[in-house]
């Protein structure tokens, strides 16, 4: 039985340039998974960007030193496919009856295709949005689960004019993404426009009912002597029958160490 809660997937990732992989996501996550960090696959930095992974593997010079950034090909010259990358990992997850699992991406830049054990799901565009996929029915109960993610750069990466400038040619402003990546008066452009799985990846195991995005609000009266805590939460019943729930809220003052005052 898997433990209730969140497990981060932040190790053991591999990456490869999409143009160097002839296999499909379904083949990568069923019959032909990569064996390890042997070319064209390499160890990947997740969470992180494509450039972070290329730097970790010494495929590019460190853009933070000297004029090294000039030695890295810009996405405007290489084309988007050059920075479109596969990321691959495996993870175990043994569920018991009536447990459910979500695969969560806290942020992707800019869009992606997810393949898990031969099943495909899409992560729509947008750098600043979370994605949560219910994968309960497609997990392998007794063996590793194979996960491959094909990550695409922003739609409008833009071109850096010879004179540079704030936001380059401003094309990146057409997308919902960080705009500094085309360069600004205080910095040079980021060659991959920060493409990648740039924030936390996790799986979260719950029972039939899941807590989503609680909202905590405080209101104050009588010169801050009388205070109320208002709490709203979303609950999702993933099972096929009515769930009789007991919902508890507890507020504690975490003192030093693990001593709690209730």
């Amino acid at each position: 039985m898997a433990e209730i809660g969140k497990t981060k997937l932040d190790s053991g990732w591999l990456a490869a340039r999409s143009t160097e992989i002839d296999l499909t996501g379904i083949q990568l996550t069923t019959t032909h998974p990569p064996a390890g960090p042997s070319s064209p696959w390499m160890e990947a930095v997740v969470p992180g960007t494509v450039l972070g992974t290329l730097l970790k593997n010494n495929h590019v010079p460190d853009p933070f030193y000297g004029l090294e950034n000039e030695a890295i090909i810009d996405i405007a010259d290489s084309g988007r496919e050059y920075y479109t990358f596969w990321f691959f990992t495996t993870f175990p997850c043994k569920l018991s009856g009536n447990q459910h699992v979500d695969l969560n991406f806290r942020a992707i830049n800019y869009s992606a295709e997810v393949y898990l054990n031969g099943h495909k799901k899409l992560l729509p565009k947008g750098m600043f949005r979370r994605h949560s996929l219910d994968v309960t029915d497609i997990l392998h109960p007794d063996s590793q689960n194979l996960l491959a993610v094909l990550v695409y750069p922003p739609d409008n990466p833009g071109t850096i004019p010879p004179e540079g400038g704030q936001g380059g040619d401003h094309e990146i402003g057409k997308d919902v993404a960080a705009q500094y990546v085309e360069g600004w008066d205080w910095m040079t452009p980021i060659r991959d426009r920060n493409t990648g799985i740039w924030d936390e990846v996790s799986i979260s195991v719950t029972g039939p009912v899941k807590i989503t995005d609680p909202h905590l609000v405080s209101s104050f009266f009588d010169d801050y002597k009388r205070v109320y805590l208002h709490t709203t939460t979303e609950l999702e019943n993933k099972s096929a029958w009515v769930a009789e729930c007991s919902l508890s809220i507890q507020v504690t003052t975490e003192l030093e160490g693990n001593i709690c005052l209730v």
Partner: protein
Amino acid sequence: EHLQTQHLSVPPSTQVQFTFPELFFYKPNLWWPNGMGKQSLYKVGITVEVKGYGESDSWSHPFGFRKIESYIDDGTGGRLFKVNGQPIFIRGGNWILSDGLLRLSKKRYKTDIKFHADMNFNMIRCWGGGLAERPEFYHYCDIYGLLVWQEFWITGDCDGRGIPVSNPNGPLDHDLFMLCARDTVKLLRNHPSLALWVGGNEQTPPEDINTSLKNDLKLHPYFRSFNKI
């Protein structure tokens, strides 16, 4: 007294929204910005148990009791801030992001943000050309008392004021912009350090986006009228 349990039935394959009856606190420890007092944090935990199954899910978040107000001062045209009813002189710094390759780490956030607190700052402004900062960034701002001014992803240069003028109507997909904004608000809204959402840098977002943001982010009418005796 700060433990409360409610019972409810959730129909199959359904998502419901539930609001607890408010919890009362008498003179709780308040959360103060750096230099004004302690950054008192409570741990709020929510668990759901399902009959015939047991504990189904749990969630917890550090929470600080604080009231942040800000308004434009007619005399100076500047924005004045109050925390817990006390005016505060803002000493702030600009923030783009930790690292151009997005190598973001708790250790780096803790170091950078403690550095700002040690410099006697009490606000960090997250510039609109950078990121909606991450929960780990806000966690350390909660701990060290740095108020956060968080801009959405609009800049004068890329959205209608650059040379040449570009994207006068902002991003191509306004619905996508609002979807990302709403999800970002849900991700960050429980952090006591979050002081102000700002449409963009040196530029007002396109009219429809600006109106939606203002509408979504105004204080819920319930809290204007609520004053339980």
